[in-house]
C-alpha cells in the first residue's frame, strides 16, 4: 500500500468492518445473524446496502415504464372559453418556444425531458457495469453517480410548477387548469429514479476492483 490511495485499496468490508452510513464510525459487525446498529448513532449497519442492485434495477425499470406515459399523456388540461386544451410536456416546450421565451422553454426541456431520461440511462449504465464487474473508469462512474444524485431531484420542479399552476389558475369560468394523468406518471418517474439512486450502493463500484485485485494478487 503506497501513500496514494489506489483504486484497489482495501475496503472496510474486506477488513471485516462495517462503516456507519450516518456518522462514519467503523465498527465490528454484531455477532450472530442479528443486524448490527451503530454504537454511536444507532444507525442500522450493513456491509453493503441490502439487495442494492436488485432494488435499483426494480426502481429503474419502474421509472422507465412510467417515463413513456409521462411523455405521451398530457400533463395539464387548460380550460378556457375557447375549449379544453391538453398539453404534453413536449407540447409545452414547443408552446413556450418563442424569440423571447426560449430560455424558459429550454429549462423545461432540460429539467423535464432530458434529465429524467439521462438519469435512467446513467443508472442503467452504472448497474450494468457493476454487475459485469467492470473495473474501468471507476472515478468517472462515481462522478456520474454523484451528478445523478445531485440533479435528479430538480426534475421535481416541473411537478411543483404544474401543481401550483393548477391550484392557482382557477378563474372559473374564464380559465381553469387541471393536472392531467401524465403529471402523475412524471412525478412517479422522478420519485422512482430518486429511489433508484438512493438504493444504489456506490461502494459496489469499488468492490469489483478490489475483488479483481484480490483475485489477481
Amino acid at each position, binding site marked *: 500500500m503506497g501513500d496514494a490511495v489506489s483504486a484497489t485499496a482495501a475496503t472496510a468490508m474486506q477488513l471485516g468492518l462495517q462503516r456507519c452510513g450516518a456518522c462514519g464510525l467503523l465498527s465490528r459487525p454484531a455477532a450472530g445473524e442479528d443486524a448490527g446498529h451503530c454504537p454511536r448513532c444507532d444507525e442500522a449497519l450493513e456491509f453493503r446496502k441490502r439487495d442494492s442492485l436488485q432494488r435499483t434495477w426494480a426502481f429503474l425499470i419502474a421509472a422507465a415504464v412510467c417515463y*413513456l406515459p409521462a411523455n405521451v399523456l398530457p400533463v395539464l388540461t387548460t380550460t378556457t372559453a375557447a*375549449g379544453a386544451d391538453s398539453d404534453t410536456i413536449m407540447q409545452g416546450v414547443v408552446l413556450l418556444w418563442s424569440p423571447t421565451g426560449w430560455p424558459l422553454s429550454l429549462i423545461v426541456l432540460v429539467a423535464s425531458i432530458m434529465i429524467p431520461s439521462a438519469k435512467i440511462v446513467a443508472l442503467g449504465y452504472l448497474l450494468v457495469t457493476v454487475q459485469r464487474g467492470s473495473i474501468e473508469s471507476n472515478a468517472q462512474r462515481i462522478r456520474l453517480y454523484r451528478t445523478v444524485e445531485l440533479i435528479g431531484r430538480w426534475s421535481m420542479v416541473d411537478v411543483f410548477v404544474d401543481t401550483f399552476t393548477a391550484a392557482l389558475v382557477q378563474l372559473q369560468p374564464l380559465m381553469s387548469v387541471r393536472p392531467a394523468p401524465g403529471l402523475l406518471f412524471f412525478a412517479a418517474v422522478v420519485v422512482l429514479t430518486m429511489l433508484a439512486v438512493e438504493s444504489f450502493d456506490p461502494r459496489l463500484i469499488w468492490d469489483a476492483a478490489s475483488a479483481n485485485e484480490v483475485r489477481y494478487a
Partner: protein
Amino acid sequence: MPDRDTPLPAAPQSRAVPKKQTRLSLVWIVPILAALVGLYVAVTRILAEGPQITIVFQSAEGLEAGKTRIHYNGVDVGTITTIRLSDDHQRVVTTAQMAPRTEAFLVEDTKFWVVRPRISGANVTGLGTLISGAYIGMEIGTSAKSRRDYVALATPPVVAGNAPGRFFVLKTPDLGSLDAGTPIFFRRLQVGEVASYTLDADGHALTVKVFVNAPYDQYVTPNTRFWQASGIDLSLSADGLSVQTQSLLSILIGGIAFETPATGPVLPAADADTVFTLFSDRVEAFKLPARDPQTYLLVFKQSVRGLARGAPVEFKGITIGEVTDVRAQFDVKTDELSVPVTIRLDPTSFGVALVDAGPDQTSVGAHQKLVDALVARGVRAQLRTGNLLTGALFVALDVFPDAPPASVDWSQKPIQIPTIPGEMEAIEANVVSIIKKLDQLPIKAIGDDLRNSLVELDKTLGSARATLDNADTLIEPSSGLGMELTGTLQDVSRAARQLGGLMDYLERHPEALIRGKTGEAK
C-alpha cells in the same frame, strides 16, 4: 426391497451444491405495479381512441392542428390533428381524431363545415367563434354506410338536420336578393328559411333549397305557389306603377312567400324535396297555369320602343297572352328592316273562356278555322301605348273592318298574324302625307302670283285713297254740302222732337186719334 443392514457397495458421495441464493426482493412489486398501471393506461387510451377521419376543406383559414375541435350540437366529438395541402395544392386535407364511440356518426351523408362568425341580414351565428376561433360543425347523416373521408361544405347549412320540418326545392331563373337564411313567409309569418342555393349545371337556372319548419310545412301542397317577396318590388309596366312588399324584414333582406290558391282542389301536404317554381311576384305566381299556349308571330315595321317582354296582348281590352320575344330582322331582298314579335296566347290562363267552341275546340283543324275566320273578319295586331307616362306599349288584337284583306300562311311556324300600324304610327303617316302634299304645292308660282296681286293691290289702294280724299273734301264742315247737311240734320232733329211730343200725347190720350184734340181745357 434391499436389506437395510446390507453394507452398501462403495458408492460415491453426492456432491453438495450450495443452494443458490435466489432471494427475490419485494421491491420488484414496484416495476410490476408501474408496468401494470402503464399497461392499463395504454389500453384505456387505445380503447378510448375514436376513429380517424379525413376532411377536405377549401381553405384552412382559422383551422389549427391539435386545437380545432369538431362539435356536434355543442358537444366536442373530435379534434383536427393534422393539416396539409392536397397533392394538387388546391385543397386542404385535414385529419381528425374523433372521440370514442363516434363510429355511428360517421356515415355516408354526414356533413362537416367550418363554423365562423356569420352575420347575415336575419341572424347572427357563430359568435362564440370570435373568442374560441373557428370550429368544425357537424351534422350526422341517416345512412347506415360507414365512411371515413369527407369533403367539407363550403357554407354551413342554415338548418340543423334534426329540426322538424321539410325541405322543398325551388327553381328560379334569378336569385334576386335571396341568400342562405333568407326568411320564408306564410301569411306574413316567418315559417322557414332558405337553406342553400346552387346554380344548375347548365347555368340556366338556380336551385334553391328551402326549409319550412313544422307545423307550417303541412300548408305546402303540390298546388302551392312560391314567389319572391324580395325587398320592395317596384314595377313600372303598361299597367302602371305597382309596389309590393311582404314585411319590413323582407324589405331589408328579401324573402320568399308562399300561398296555396284557395280555389284549387284541396291536396295533401307535399312530400319533402318537391320541386316548385319560384315566381318573381305574387301576380305571376297566381296566374293560372298555361294549358295550351299558342305562339304567334307579329311582324311590325315600326319602332317597338317601349314593348317589353311580358307586355300584355289584349283582345278588345282583355288580356289573353303576353309578348315572349322581341327581335329585329333585316330582309336583304326587300331591304326592309322589321321587328318580329313573338307572342303567346293562352286565353284560358287569363280566365277567358271560349263559349260554344264545340267539343273539338282543341283540335288543330278547329283552331285553324277559328284563326282564319278572325283574320278574314279583320282581326289585326296593333301596337298601342298602354301608359303615356312610361311609353310602355302593348299588343292589341282588334277588329279593323277597313284593314286591307290578308290571309294566314299556315306553312309558317309560328303562324304570322297580320299587323296594322299602330295609332301613333297612323298619325305619323298622316303627318308625313300632309307634309308630302305641302311639298308638292307650287309655292314659287303662288309667290309670284301673290306678288303680282300685291302690286295690283297697291295700285287699287292708291286709287281708293284718292276717292276717299275726294269724299273727305265733300263732307268738310266748311263746304256747302256740309252746311246743308247740318241744316237738314237740325230739321230732322226738330221733327223728331215734335214726333216725340205727339207720341207722348197719344199715349196719354189715345182717343185723340179718333176724337181729335179735346178736353185740353179740362
